[in-house]
Structure formats: C-alpha cells, structure tokens
C-alpha cells in the first residue's frame, strides 16, 4: 500500500498537505476503509482554533461514531461543505475531493514532525 508522497501523516490516520503556511487536512484511505461506509461528518466551525492531536470533529459510519483528531494546530479558514451532503466522498476520494478543512498553521514545525508517506505505509502495514 502506498500513500501520496506530498502529504504528512499522523498516527490517528489524518493527512496534511502544506502550501505556503496553510494546510489542508483530511483522513487517510486507511481510516476510511476501517470505518466502512461513512454516512455523516460533523465539521469544525470556520474560525475555530485547532490544537494538534485534539478532537475537532466527528465522522460516523453506519455502525460507529469516531472522533477526528487535528494533525496540526491552527485556525480553521475553510471547511468542505460538500461533505455535508456527500459524506461518502471520504470513502471514494479521501485525499482529494474528501478534504475536510483548510487551516492557517500556527506552527509549521508540527507538520514537518509528522510521518512521511513511507513511514505511514510501514505504520499501517
């Protein structure tokens, strides 16, 4: 299994794409597969302050409710409203159309310290 190599990954199976001090975050295909059919996403509010590894939302599958853990700290600039009507995007395109939020990074070093694609692949076996 290989993962997009322009992203960084947290142990809680979230990914981060950093572009000029702003990060796009989401959950990995590994997380989405583990969850099964995703039927509901509770998104953070625009303007909310995220703290690395703190919870920032909820994703629900048919059977279970799972917390989302912020891979980085910062302020939420934008959320993916498409997920409200189409939570299944997290299953079908978790690294693309299934992005969850865009965040202004408060500490760019945090993303650097996360796993790269190779390490994440090893971590998830």
């Amino acid at each position, binding site marked *: 299994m290989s993962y997009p190599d322009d992203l960084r990954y947290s142990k809680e199976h979230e990914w981060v794409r950093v572009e000029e001090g702003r990060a796009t975050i989401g959950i990995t295909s590994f997380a989405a597969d583990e969850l099964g059919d995703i*039927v509901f996403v509770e998104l953070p509010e625009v303007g909310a302050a995220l703290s690395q590894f703190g919870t920032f939302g909820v994703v629900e599958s048919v059977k279970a409710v799972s917390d989302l853990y912020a891979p980085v700290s910062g302020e939420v600039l934008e959320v993916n409203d498409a997920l409200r009507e189409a939570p299944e995007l997290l299953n079908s395109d978790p690294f693309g159309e299934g992005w969850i939020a865009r965040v202004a990074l408060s500490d760019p070093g945090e993303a650097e310290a996360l796993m790269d694609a190779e390490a994440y692949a090893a971590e998830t076996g």
Partner: protein
Amino acid sequence: MSDAAAGTLQRTPLHELHRELGARLVPFAGYEMPVQYTSIIEEHRTVRTAVGLFDLSHMGEIEVRGEEAVAFLRYALVSDPGTLVVGQAQYSMLCEDDGGIIDDLICYRLEDDRFWVVCNASNRAAVVAQLEGLLARGDFGATLEDRSDRTALVAPQGPNAAALLAGLTDLDLEAIGTYRSAPGTVAGVECLVARTGYTGEDGFELFCDARRARQVWEAVSAAGVGHGLRPCGLGARDTLRLEAGMPLYGNELTRETNPFEVNLGRVVKLEKGEFVGRAALQAVQQTGPARKLVGLEMRENAIPRAGYPVQVQGTPVGHVTSGTLSPTLGTKIAMALVPAELAGIGSAFEVVVRDRPYRAEQVKLPFYRRPRD
C-alpha cells in the same frame, strides 16, 4: 465448531469460508462473526433488491419433544404454540415471573409433539437454563435437547430468494408461506426450510447439519450468481431489521422491558391459561404500559444512536434503543422508549447527540414495509 475456552471466541462451521470471502470478523455473542464483506450499505441494498446470504449458525436451536411438549411450551412461552399446525411457526418470547423478557425467539412446530425453539446466540444459555428449570419443576412429560452446536443456519433473504432456492430444492416453495417450514433437501442436503427472517423481505432460513453447512452455502451462492446474490454480515442485518421496525434483544428487549411496552402485546396470549409471567403481564395490560416504543425520524441533522437521551423541550423523558442512517430511506431513524402519555404520531421530541438536542418527530412503525404485488 470449537469449544469455547474462557476468553476465546467460538466459530461457526463457515468460518474459513468467511475468511476466504474477505469478511471483516468481529466478536458477537461469544462468536467470531462477519459484520460485513464489502460494505454494510451495499449488502443492505442487495437484500432489499436481490438476495443476500447470511450465516446465522451462531443462533440457538433447542428441540422440545414429548407427549407434553405442547403443554410445556404453552407454560414456558408467552404465546400459544398449541395453535400451531405442523409446519407452522410463531414469533414468541420467554419472560420472567415479573414479565421481563429473557429472549425473543421463533417456535417451530415440526411434528405434533416436536418443536424447535430458535433463540438469540447471546441468550442461548439463559434460554436453556430457563426451559430446563421449568421442565424439571413442572414435571412435564417432555425432553429438551440443545442442538445448537450441530446445527448450522444459512439464510438467503430478499425478493430473489424464492426463485434462487426453487432450483435447488425438492420442496414446492409456493406451498411454504410466511412463518411456515418443511423438511426437505437443498442441493442434496437435508434441511429444515423455513420461510422466516429478520429483514422485512421475503426469505428463507435453511437449518442443516453443521457438517454440511459449507455445501449448502456454496450451492446457494453458486445458484445466486444469476440473482444478484451477495454474502451479507451482521451490520446489514441490523440496519435491515431496524428499518423494518423489528426489535433487537439487548436494545429494545431486555429483562427490564415487558412485551406491552415494545409493541409486542399481540404476541402474549393471556387467555390461554397459566404461564410464566402471566400475572405480571396481565397487570400491565390492564393498566397500560408506562412506556411505549416509538419510531422517530430526525428533523435536524444528527444520527440518533442506542443510549442517546430523548427529551421534550429540554426535559429528559426517555432514551433511544436503536438508531441509524437508513440506507433504504436515506433518513436518520430511531426507535426510542418514551412515556406512554407523550407518544403519538407527529409528537415532537429531541434526541441529545454529543450534549446537544436535535429535533425529531414520531413517525409510524415500521419505517419500511416491503412492496406487495
């Protein structure tokens, strides 16, 4: 099947097959069971539109036979198995003296004096203990045999189930109506073929010797190729029964609930004579139950789940017993226990999800009824 040592899970005779099919296996009632093979939603839709195949071998099958088998079961169960003709089955419950539900089950009359009680895997020990105790104390002329470990149960469920099965069996399936059964063969294997199920669709439950389970499953699967068959796990089984308004033991049915609270009063035959729980159940029926099981549909965007509090204008009044996003209807549905005086179609409630109330409305049960032609 392996014996369960403390802490290890039992396996059904189809365990290897589930692994081959790539099933996600989870612990359930002391067994390792498939919760899904591909996707719960896909499996759910397959049962509604084609045919899904379930391994239910973990369930309990208890044979009761003898001259006084009928008298014994009339005493032990809340329903009246004496009204069953041979080949007929009825949904029933085993209750305690106080009317609390020990298990819900289906009672099949196989011969005049031979019955099968098919119960939940999670309650099998409790059901056997209750029946054995009553049998001994009441000195009934009947015997009891727990056949669960040597009986497998393979269940094709869905509108295409009959067409699929017709080619595999010597039985005339048109002569087997809902809640009827007959002994016969399926793919050359002796089976009890029952037209019962827990999905709200037409379907069959095929009881066979555990050693022939794989043969039956593989034959049904092969025949299923032309009928859109998919293997289906317990995840879909739960969403299907909830849409169909069917109760689940552990959620709607517990030792702390009685049949009248959960829309199962019609199953209790108070007039049949003495039976376990009669006095308590008669009292509830006379005064009316304090709580009622209602169907809710969310009017705001949150998914109700078992255990979530139910409120009316901020005041806690009850709790959700089961809830989900309905794959067939696309709505967020729940069953909940609320005070009887607050129940009514159209009544407004709130379900508390992660400490916030979300509006819900009581709707008619079942949420889904299969189309009749």
